[in-house]
């Protein structure tokens, strides 16, 4: 990216690029995938500089993680943990990660420390065709019956997995999202629909250590 383009992108993200130049930049961006990637990185950096924090949830990141650890078995955690750990679904063995098949963007999940306490499987479905296995499904300990109650705090205790369930197939996810979106009258509907327009393909690289915490199982490592 030339210095001039860099300055244009920067000015655009700051809302300071004149109309005529914005038009030119837009034309370039729509036909130049490389420039779009740079633009995306700039947008991330811009948000970080503005103090809003950068967004770490990254479409397609699961693919890269799985490629890095392909072939290593998943392990269920030995005990419940108070802090939420990131885990993910992945092929049982040696399955090539297919890109570009997903109708719905499915991504890796960042490790989150949240309150109320929640520990359990944070999983990522990311391969349509392959049989997938859970590290550990979660269960909510519930009390009593009757109508719904508002929970003020809760804990999710990981349960031992005795089966090998499938992840949600992307095509099926698309159907769920469409069915849901008509009740989603807020800006959320826009978010859901625009994302359905996006193919989960050609993901720009994001440093792994920034996007994903180390996996919980000792024998699975994210390649640097």
């Amino acid at each position, binding site marked *: 990216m030339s210095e001039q383009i860099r300055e244009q992108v920067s000015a655009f993200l700051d809302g300071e690029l004149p109309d005529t130049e914005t038009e030119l930049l837009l034309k370039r961006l729509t036909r130049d995938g490389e420039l779009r990637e740079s633009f995306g990185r700039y947008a991330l950096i811009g948000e970080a500089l503005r103090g809003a924090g950068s967004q770490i949830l990254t*479409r397609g990141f699961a693919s890269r993680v799985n490629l890095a650890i392909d072939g290593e078995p998943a392990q269920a955690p030995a005990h419940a943990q108070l802090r939420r750990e990131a885990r993910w679904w992945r092929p049982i063995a040696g399955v090539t990660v297919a890109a570009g098949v997903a109708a719905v*963007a499915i991504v890796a999940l960042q490790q989150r420390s949240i309150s109320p306490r929640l520990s359990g499987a944070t*999983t*990522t479905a990311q391969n349509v065709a392959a049989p997938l296995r859970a590290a550990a499904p979660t269960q909510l300990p*519930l009390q009593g019956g009757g109508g719904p109650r508002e929970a003020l705090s809760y804990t999710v205790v990981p349960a031992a997995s005795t089966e090998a369930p499938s992840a949600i197939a992307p095509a099926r996810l*698309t159907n769920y999202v469409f069915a849901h979106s008509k009740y*989603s009258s*807020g800006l959320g509907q826009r978010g859901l629909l625009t*994302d359905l*327009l996006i193919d989960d393909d050609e993901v720009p690289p994001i440093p792994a250590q920034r996007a994903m915490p180390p996996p919980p199982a000792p024998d699975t490592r994210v390649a640097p």
Partner: protein
Amino acid sequence: MTQPRLALAYWLVPCALVGALLSTVPQSARGADDPRVWLQRMNKALATRNYDGTFFHISGGRVETMRIVHRVRSGRVTERLQSLDGSGREFVRANDELTCYLPDQHTVLVEPRQDRGPFLGSLPQFDATVSDFYRIEALPDTHILGRPTRVIAVNPKDQFRFGYRLWLDEKTAMPLKTQLCDSRGQVIEQIFFARLDMPESIPDSDLAPTVHTDGMRWVRQGASADNASAALAAYRASQLPPGFRLTVQGAQTIGGATAPASHLVYSDGLATVSVFIEQSSSDSGAPSALDPQAQAPEAPMQGLARVGSGYAFSTVVQGHQVTAVGEVPAQTVEFIAHSVKISSGAEIPHH
């Protein structure tokens, strides 16, 4: 373009004058500055104006360029949302139908839609209930596309819902930039207009899909006239995150399924979560609408997936497939899905 785009100078001069005048007025006297009033203006503009814009959808460092065309003519809304550089997918809403062209899937998905909300989204009226869980505030004004812009933040008060930041054109109240944020203010996703025209009229040709549908498979899904089986309809979320309540209960055909699923909608007034309760896929044997060749998986679905700016979580409850989907944090869909169980005597708001 049917109209020349709004020129920079056209905006700057009058708005600078207005800004100078307003700056002399005490804050308390400026009812028009109430961020809620601005949200109402935005909703009205999104729903009632003609617009044709190109925007960037930025998520996780990835940028997609999209075009939105929205036309209101004789009270009828026609709308087209198109990916310009990605999948080639397009959504068109017209005549109370949402048609989704998915050329990469060789599929056209059609669903009846009576909803009037624009593709770009709007925010509901903020009543007292919503205010319990979101804080609305005006942030310092700025410029987007050279236009004076109001900045409104809708901040979630806990981690069970997302918030928004909106940059609204001072003149038209159109959102020139929108950010989806988590409860810590971190940006999850943003859209950023690079061009926004608001023409008096938009020709039909700008609303026609550009996808060639030869050889594509057409799939219809939608709310089912048949009720879900009593076994499925008896399930409810037994626990909910603060502020969420059941707003809709009905039946929904998912893709090419043979039997309708029970469809529950929970909302806090702004965010919504759908819960689908189905016969376990190994029982129904229903193939996916988008993948008819694939047989339904033998094993039940289980897991969390990101769906756009929201999440889906699927689990199995007493042999039934339970899937929660919504534009909410992962923990919210997980929480709700895990709490689903048979409920006796639940109140049932119908479609």
